[in-house]
């Protein structure tokens, strides 16, 4: 690990000023950053430790029915917050399906949003990677790439975004609150992560010094609590990143789908909101034929980036199954177990 300076700011303004300097990086739990630094992938000159900043570790239910989650709230604390899990069950399910208990106890909301791709070529400094070093090339393209992107990728980068947590958040229209040099601003989470295009090294819409301070879920996100699921398929039964995942949320009124929300993980460089599929579901009966049509719409633009054509068909099937599970109803107990989507149980009250 390259030597670095360590600073512990006393306020958000101090943090922003310290992190706006070239070579600086924010440190929260460090569960991803320290791993990258040990491998020589990230080489910051200065770490700005935000974990001691006051007031960023709260879960607040606001008067307008929205929910505000501070950037330093730990994954495990959020997932195990009873009121949170009841109102936003797919988000809790996604949180509990990610990483291990040790990592969930440490990892923060803000860090989760900014975790880096797990593309093996990005992780290996001996490989060429446009994301790690702009203009150097992409060894994933033509390499071992059965787990790479099928949507929104470019010739310069075929990596995927690894988060589970972000998938239902994007589906539920989460807003990110950002403190920067110009003050406070807000951004839909869907606009935080960028597709690679010709500049894969620019991963997010953040500017130097920008600090994510909170995420908000609008009041409308609660409308989906009774019919919401996160379904993740992976190569072993736990503690693995998604090959493909889907967050599905339905608002069912008088036997038809009033509103549908759908986002996919493991398929693109960002959490992938499937708006065409949502439009196809609106007004439809919650039945397999409608779910199949939605799955076709969600993957209509998909194309393999290498040895991963199977992910397109897999994603279609995951969409159908996630929608079927959501239509059946949210289970009373968040499963967080890989086999759970196939298990029966009492439904969410």
């Amino acid at each position, binding site marked *: *690990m390259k*030597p*670095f*300076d*360590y600073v512990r700011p006393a306020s958000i303004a101090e943090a922003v000023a310290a992190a706006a300097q070239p070579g600086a990086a924010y*440190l929260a*739990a*460090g*569960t991803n950053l*320290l*791993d990258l630094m*040990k*491998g020589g992938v990230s080489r910051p000159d200065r*770490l700005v*430790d935000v*974990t001691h900043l006051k007031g960023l570790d709260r879960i607040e239910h606001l008067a307008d029915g929205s929910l505000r989650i501070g950037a330093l709230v730990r994954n*495990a604390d959020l997932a*195990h917050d009873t009121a949170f899990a009841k109102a936003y069950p797919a988000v809790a399910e996604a949180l509990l399906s990610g*990483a*291990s*208990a*040790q*990592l969930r*106890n*440490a990892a923060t909301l803000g860090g989760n949003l900014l975790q880096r791709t797990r593309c093996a070529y990005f992780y290996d400094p001996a490989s060429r990677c446009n994301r790690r070093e702009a203009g150097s090339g992409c060894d994933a393209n033509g390499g071992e790439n059965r787990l790479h992107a099928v949507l929104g990728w470019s010739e310069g980068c075929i990596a995927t975004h690894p988060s589970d947590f972000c998938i239902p958040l994007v589906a539920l229209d989460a807003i990110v609150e950002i403190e920067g040099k110009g003050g406070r601003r807000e951004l839909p989470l869907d606009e935080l992560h960028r597709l690679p295009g010709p500049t894969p090294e620019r991963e997010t819409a953040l500017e130097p010094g920008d600090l994510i301070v909170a995420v908000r879920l609008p009041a409308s996100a609660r409308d989906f609590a009774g019919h919401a699921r996160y379904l993740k398929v992976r190569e072993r*039964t*736990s*503690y693995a990143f998604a090959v493909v995942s889907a967050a599905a949320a339905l608002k069912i009124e008088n036997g038809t789908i009033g509103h549908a929300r759908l986002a996919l993980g493991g398929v693109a460089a960002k959490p992938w909101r499937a708006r065409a599929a949502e439009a196809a579901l609106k007004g439809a009966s919650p039945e397999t034929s409608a779910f199949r049509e939605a799955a076709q719409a969600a993957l209509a633009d998909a194309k393999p980036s290498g040895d991963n054509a199977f992910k397109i068909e897999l994603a279609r099937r995951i969409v159908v199954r996630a929608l079927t599970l959501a239509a059946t109803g949210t289970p009373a107990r968040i499963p*967080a*177990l*890989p*086999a759970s989507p196939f298990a029966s149980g009492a439904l969410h009250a």
Partner: protein
Amino acid sequence: MTHSISLTVNGARRDLQLDDPRVTLLDLLRERLQLTGTKKGCDRGQCGACTILVDGRRINACLALAISHDGADILTIEGIARGDQLHPVQAAFIAHDGFQCGFCTPGQIMSAIGMMREAQAGDDPERIRECISGNLCRCGAYAGIVDAVLEVQTSEANQRRSA
């Protein structure tokens, strides 16, 4: 630049000077405090051999900078027995043949203790397996570990009922 931090480790306060902010909690425990029960396996958060409790919660000590944990309360494998009396989880690991080799076992035991404090798994063996899946090893003791956890949980639940 030297940084001063203060930790409570297994109940004792330790005031420490760090010459280099790169030191992880794992390296601090092993190299500075000679508490070598906590093991360095992968050193990348993947194997769980370095699991310790920080402020009562299990984390990977290899991915935690010591300097960032100023003021933390740390419990390691050395701090769980009372003199010659083993912690119930240690005793249950022996009774159920839950021991992997000495490298993985301390992390498995600390992870099991953390899991029980989190009280999320209940008595469902599938959930216990998921909750302890952050400890990876190719040895064959997983089944014994699940039995050990179940026994301690049942015993503690019975004690609570009779208390």
